[in-house]
């Protein structure tokens, strides 16, 4: 279940839950003056915590490493299409608002929104 390299520009090592060594895909795009940070779950290639479980901790590590301000980015989690026959490994993008409660923290992006950021 290797994740296609089209989902990321680089693999970003991070410390997950309990500082577990972890890895995600990372793309940073600037579109219309907004900075989009897109983290992609790498499944089997990620030896540690998932991007969703790492959440804010991962965002802060990326911001620190890339010199970004957490208040000035749009943070997006991507679960990539892994060409699995199982529907729960389909591609999805979620914008994450860490200030919201868990029920309202994630907003799924439409295909058009994703295209706008990535194309």
């Amino acid at each position: 279940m290797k994740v296609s390299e089209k989902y990321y520009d680089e693999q970003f090592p991070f410390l997950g839950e309990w500082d577990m060594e972890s890895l995600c895909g990372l793309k940073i795009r600037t579109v219309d003056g907004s900075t989009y940070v897109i983290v992609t779950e790498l499944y089997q290639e990620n030896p540690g915590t998932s991007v969703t479980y790492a959440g804010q901790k991962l965002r802060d590590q990326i911001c620190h490493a890339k010199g970004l301000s957490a208040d000035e980015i749009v943070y997006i989690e991507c679960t990539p299409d892994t060409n699995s026959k199982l529907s729960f490994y389909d591609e999805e993008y979620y914008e994450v608002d860490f200030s919201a409660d868990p029920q309202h923290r994630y907003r799924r992006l439409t295909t058009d929104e994703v295209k706008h950021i990535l194309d």
Partner: protein
Amino acid sequence: MDTIKLKLIYPRWKKLPGQTTFTLPPHGPVAFAATLPEYVDIDFIDENVEDINFDDPCDLVALSTMLSTQVKRAWEIAAEYHKRGKKVIAGGISAMLHAEEYVNHVDSLFLGESEGRSEQVILDWKNGCLKKVYNYLGKQPPIESVGPCRRDLYKRELYNHKGVQMVDLFHASRGCRFSCYPCAVSYLGGRKFRPRPVDKVVEDMAGIDNNRLFIVDNSLAQDKEWEKELFRAIAPLKKKWISHTIEDDPEVLDLAAKAGAWYVYQAVYDTSDYIKERVKRYHDNGIGVEGTILLGLDNQTVDDCKRLIDFLGEIDLDLAEFTIMTPFPHTKAYDDYLRQGRIFDFDWNHYNAGQVVFKPALMTPDELQGVYEYAWKSFYASETQESKMFRLFCNVALREMNEGTYRPRNRALANKSFGRDVDRTVKTHQNAF
């Protein structure tokens, strides 16, 4: 070093209405106990079969938990010991899954595998510098360091039903190269399959005073050559064993049967000919099959579930176990449902795989709960679970008699079931829910 009296506790949990009342001797606590130095005098209490006397003298308390449904009880136990001024350490699968909360209830939390590491915890406690967290997540010890469990700590008579000794749990490997949707094993034990050296497995298995085992490895079907070597090596022991999936390969199945495979847990996830034939291939090799059926996946409607349940009658399963999809932390299911805002219940006591805690995609939570109850009743309508289990039991007893390894049941315990007097009430799935 002076002797240290350690109270090692495995907290109780509430059994589900459809489940058998059988209680197996737990594996985690005795695997941990085996890693402790000799000067630690361990008193093991499995709260599922005996009560805790909180005033019993001890120096230190260790909690070992496997299930999410044990963690809240573990925290209650920790609170009782804290009232008595005792320090409490904890570890185990659900301690790792729920670590962020768990750490608030105990003096020290151990994350990861304990081989070669537990003595430091004891020394730190002795020296008054116990760390809040011993974090070995992702840093597995050499698999060669995994030794025999401390099964001498079991009070054997408590794992006995009407004179029949329960199976002993055993592990031949750790870690998993698969990363299945509802499973957290790759997070807990690493994404690499780590088979134990076969000679160690044989030595360990031979030392168990029980002819019937449950090899609890997540899947033996991860390294075919090791699997074949394992089966060839354990065959002379004449043990009979239960396991999860075995490689779907004629040679492997033949070797498994010769090595004593009694029955396997096999996931039944659709109504395909492949599943039907998979079950048949086990049966052709004399291996029984307990189907494990997960209900509530995102592609399932109520009708799909009912079709799947009806299908079970066509494939001649020996037993079936139904579970409701449950988003345990550190699984992809948890991440997906969390992002989708579908988890409505975070009470870990309800994470028992028999209670709906999320919004299914194609049915309501009530409909899923209803389908689950229907599944148990429907499958066991014509023959009770106890009766089906008895047939499996007879099957293995006959094989043992032919091989000269059969041990008659202990008549002195014929009126006891897990330490309590036998309940003669006939329980069926019709009246369980």
